[in-house]
């Protein structure tokens, strides 16, 4: 079943939409959640919540890319759960490590005062990513959106782990400079 057909089921309020979503995107969403939480029970709950949120938000939304739409919901729900669960300390999950890495992207200057919403900042990051090569972009998104480990990215991309680390390091540095040049305060 195509993504459009599944979205149509949501619009028709047909409960098969959930079943089809689960069949087609269940594994994808579970992987994202597992990368963040590292716990299958928590991940399954997040994925079920994802279906519920999709049911409640389509309509009115009509996502162009259903995978990305569901992935985004799963990611946000999993981050919420991660924050609640590890309020005081960071878990030793891949996500915890990637959070530490993202500190490198935060601009140094204290005088930056351009406050953006997460949506606006997301658009800026998208624009930054489009200026990079496709392979560098993929490595970045796999790491910081999908929460994949460096090892998994290396296998998927056919690179060595050190090459993946090097790409991520350079990308973080570039993103930091870009945010500083835009005057973004984080």
């Amino acid at each position, binding site marked *: 079943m195509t993504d459009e057909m599944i979205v149509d089921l949501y619009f028709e309020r047909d409960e098969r939409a959930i079943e089809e979503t689960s069949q087609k995107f269940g594994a*994808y969403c579970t992987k994202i959640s597992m990368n963040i939480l590292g716990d299958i029970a928590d991940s399954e709950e997040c994925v079920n919540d994802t279906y519920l949120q999709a049911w409640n938000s389509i309509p009115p939304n009509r996502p162009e*890319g259903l995978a990305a739409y569901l992935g985004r919901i799963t990611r946000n729900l999993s981050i919420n759960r991660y924050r609640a669960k590890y309020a005081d300390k960071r878990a030793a999950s891949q996500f915890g490590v990637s*959070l530490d890495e993202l*500190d490198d992207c935060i601009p140094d200057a204290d005088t930056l005062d351009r406050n953006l919403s997460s949506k606006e900042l997301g658009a800026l990051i998208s624009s930054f990513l*489009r200026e990079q090569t496709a392979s560098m972009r993929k490595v970045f998104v796999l790491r910081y959106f999908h929460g994949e480990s460096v090892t998994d990215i290396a296998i*998927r991309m056919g690179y060595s782990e050190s090459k993946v680390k090097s790409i991520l390091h350079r990308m973080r540095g570039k993103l930091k400079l870009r945010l500083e040049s835009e005057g973004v305060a*984080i």
Partner: protein
Amino acid sequence: MKNELLVRAISEIDPDLIEEAAAVKPAAKFSYRKLASIAASFVLIITAFIVFAGLPGNSYVSIYGTELSSGASVFNAELTPSIARYSAEETVVTVMIPLEISARGKTTVKTEDENGYAEMLDEAGNILKCGSAFEITENTSFIWYINVSESDSEKKLNIIRENSTETVTVKYDFSTNTFTAVFSE
């Protein structure tokens, strides 16, 4: 948390960028196990080929049922008087050489002498093919006729395959009415 906004913002990146990354399939990895299975299959195929078709480049050639080798084998000659000829200078006789060749795939048998002649026969003795050159594809019996004289007593027959040529060399001895045959690659 300092990077909270950044973490949330990454959730908001364009859908096509998310799907582009998600579509990356694991790259093909070099696998020793895969290589080993390919090698094993290759060995099996070669073994089967050798068992059923014999080693390439190594024909089996026999005369009167005796396998020829690189050493000389001596045979009593059987002449065919009906086609023996006499020239002004010397006697020319025709020696009949019954050959059996095990062909390895597509093989051409060709007399070195352009005027040479051979006949491929079936079990009943009927002529299937004849001439100075013809193709054989399996174990084949045929008769090679050589016209020899005192001054020209050595004749050659080439067994030609795709990448190799083997030769049967026959030398007739008028004094003993025998011929020696040598098989060489």
